[in-house]
Structure formats: structure tokens, C-alpha cells
């Protein structure tokens, strides 16, 4: 789980506890007092269960109490409110969700750059069905490192002197400094198919400078 998911879970749990506590304060104590179920519930929800409980306890008990139907209506409204909260937070979470960090993903396959390139140049459509959109850990010799305005490309040797496996990395990758031409390196990324080279996006360096 990412940090965002934890925060969301935490907020949802907090909301749930607040709603349950408020409901019990309003139902068990508020109903029997002048403040009533409704006001007690609203106060507890907005100000928090403890302050709501205090205010509810300060209210005096009236002569008659018969609010069963209203209680049911408010229970339903309460459920709606909670459901709304969950849906809104899910919506916000989905809207702001970023792509999963490759470093957090388990590699589906491990292969050498030469084998991956050869598999693709032998049979592209078959290789697509095996490798495309998979998290792949590739071992290979660095034949080129190129910095660009929008990131960094490391080309791994495909064993033919010209083409190989092209990996795009973020400039912030801490292991990048250790990456040097002709070194063997292990890179994890998502295979998106083949143009001239096999293309891996969102790559991270797993292990640098293996001579």
C-alpha cells in the first residue's frame, strides 16, 4: 500500500469511529434529553464525540420521549452521510492516484537484455503476449546513457552492436551516478513493446556497477 492509501484508510476509519460514537451518544443519551437525538447527533458529528457527549449530558431530561420514527430516519441519513464520505474519498483517491512506483513492484520476469531483444526480433507478436505491460528485470551491458530534457535513457546492448533494450529512467534515481558505459546493470521496468529497440518505461536501477 502506498502512503496515500494509508492516509485514506486512516481518514475513513476515523470517520467511521466518529459516526458510530456520535450515533450511540445521540441514541442512548441525547434521545432522552431536551437536546434530542437530532441536535445531539449533529453536534457530536461536527464538534467531535467527546464535546458532543458533554453538551448532551448538560441538557436536562424532559417529561416525554417518543421519537422512534425520527430515529430510523436519522439512522438512514447517517448511513447515507457515511456512504457519501466513502464515495467522495474513493473518488478523490482515484482522481489523484499516481502510477505505482516500479521500485515497489515485484518483477514478473527476469531476463537478459540480449535474450529479450532476440525474442522480440524473432517474433514480435508472440513476445508482446509474453512481455508487454509486464514488470521485467533486465540484465545487460550499458551501451549508451543519454540525458534528455524529459528524463534519462539507458540503452542496454542487444548483442548486435546497434539495437537493444531502451530504458527510460527518472533523473532522481539515486543509483544513476554509479551507472557507467560498458558496465553490467540490472534494470527493472515496464515493457511496452518494440520499435527499433525493446522499450521499457518507468525504469529503476536494481543493481548498478556489476563488472
Amino acid at each position, binding site marked *: 500500500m502506498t502512503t496515500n492509501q494509508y492516509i485514506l484508510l486512516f481518514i475513513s476509519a476515523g470517520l467511521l469511529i466518529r459516526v458510530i460514537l456520535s450515533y450511540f451518544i445521540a441514541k442512548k443519551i441525547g434521545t432522552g434529553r431536551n437536546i434530542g437525538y437530532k441536535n445531539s447527533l449533529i453536534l457530536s458529528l461536527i464538534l467531535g464525540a467527546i464535546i458532543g457527549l458533554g453538551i448532551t449530558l448538560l441538557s436536562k431530561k424532559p417529561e416525554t420521549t417518543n421519537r422512534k420514527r425520527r430515529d430510523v430516519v436519522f439512522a438512514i441519513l447517517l448511513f447515507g452521510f457515511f456512504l457519501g464520505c466513502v464515495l467522495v474519498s474513493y473518488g478523490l483517491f482515484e482522481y489523484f492516484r499516481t502510477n*505505482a512506483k516500479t521500485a515497489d513492484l515485484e518483477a514478473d520476469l527476469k531476463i537478459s537484455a540480449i535474450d529479450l531483444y532476440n525474442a522480440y526480433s524473432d517474433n514480435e507478436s508472440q513476445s508482446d503476449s509474453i512481455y508487454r505491460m509486464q514488470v521485467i528485470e533486465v540484465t545487460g551491458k550499458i551501451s549508451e546513457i543519454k540525458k534528455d530534457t524529459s528524463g534519462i535513457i539507458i540503452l542496454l546492448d542487444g548483442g548486435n552492436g546497434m539495437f537493444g533494450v531502451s530504458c527510460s529512467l527518472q533523473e532522481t534515481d539515486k543509483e544513476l551516478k554509479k551507472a557507467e558505459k560498458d558496465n553490467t546493470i540490472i534494470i527493472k521496468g515496464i515493457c511496452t513493446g518494440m520499435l527499433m529497440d525493446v522499450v521499457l518505461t518507468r525504469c529503476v536501477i536494481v543493481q548498478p556497477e556489476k563488472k
Partner: protein
Amino acid sequence: MKTIFATILSISLFAFTLKTEPTKYFTREANITFLSEAPLEKIEGINNQAVSMLDISTGQIEFAVLMKAFEFDRALLQEHFNENYAESDKFPKSNFKGNITNFADVKWAVDGDYSVTVTGKLTMHGVTKDVTAKGKITVKAGAISATSTFNVLMSDFNIVIPTVVKDKVNNSVKIEVISNYKPYLG
């Protein structure tokens, strides 16, 4: 004697061909940006692993790109782009094959900026359309780079934008291309 002469001739010919200036240039790191600006939302997808070939003897220019390699800052946009609009599983690649119409105006050996017009065929989402784009070729210390910005209509490529998201996704998408070439020694 004859064989020696022939050998010398072929060696010198070989040396001569090695010396000639390359006419084909390529890059595997061309930047292609996809930009949709709608009243409610700006959507930008960046691909820095596009492949391009440029032949300076004919003015022929080609681009190829993997749709799945477009990166968006929000995962939902990327998923919608691939699943609902580009249908990247069905149409994994897009390409452009064209010509620099005024390539004779470009002095490939002289440093400078040259305005060019490129016309050709853009294939995307399984549809091929004629596209004309204005661009710039920059020659600097023997290095050739090309930039271009042009608009394409999604509806031209059978990509339907539902009415519900009309304010979020623009039918007219701006494509930006930045391509830094190096000699192709293949």
C-alpha cells in the same frame, strides 16, 4: 597482376564509401508530447522513447511511437488514454511517414535554423490521415535536430470523446515533437 589491381581498387572504393558523409540520421529518444487543453482539465502525455529516421538526401522523415509508453502524471488519465481513447492494446503503435517539402532550402552542413514544412501520413488508432506540419530544423556543429508543433483532431482518427467529458478532453490535440538526431551507421 589483375587480381592485385582489383583488390587495390576495391579497397580504395571501400575506403571512399567509408569517408562519405552519412545521409541517414536517426534517434531512439525523440520526445513526443500529447496535449489536450479543455476548460476544466489540461491533459499531458509525454513519450521520450519515440524513434525517428531522417534522410537528408531525400528529405524523407519518419516517426514511430509506442502508445503505451506515453506517461501521464495521474494514473487514471493514463488508463483512460490507453483503454478508452487510443485503444493501445488493439493499436499499439502510431507512426508518421512524410517528406520535408522544402528540404532543398536546408543547408545540412551550415549551422543555423531552417523553417520547414513536412507533409505525410499519420497513422494512429488504425486510421491513416494526411498531415501537414510546420517545423524547424536546427543544424549546430554537425548535429541535426528537429522540432514541430501541430494539431490533430481526435475525430479524424475515429476517436470519440463522449459528451460527458467534453469540458475535460479537447477534440483538438496538440502534438509537440523534439528530435535530436545522430548519424545512422546501419
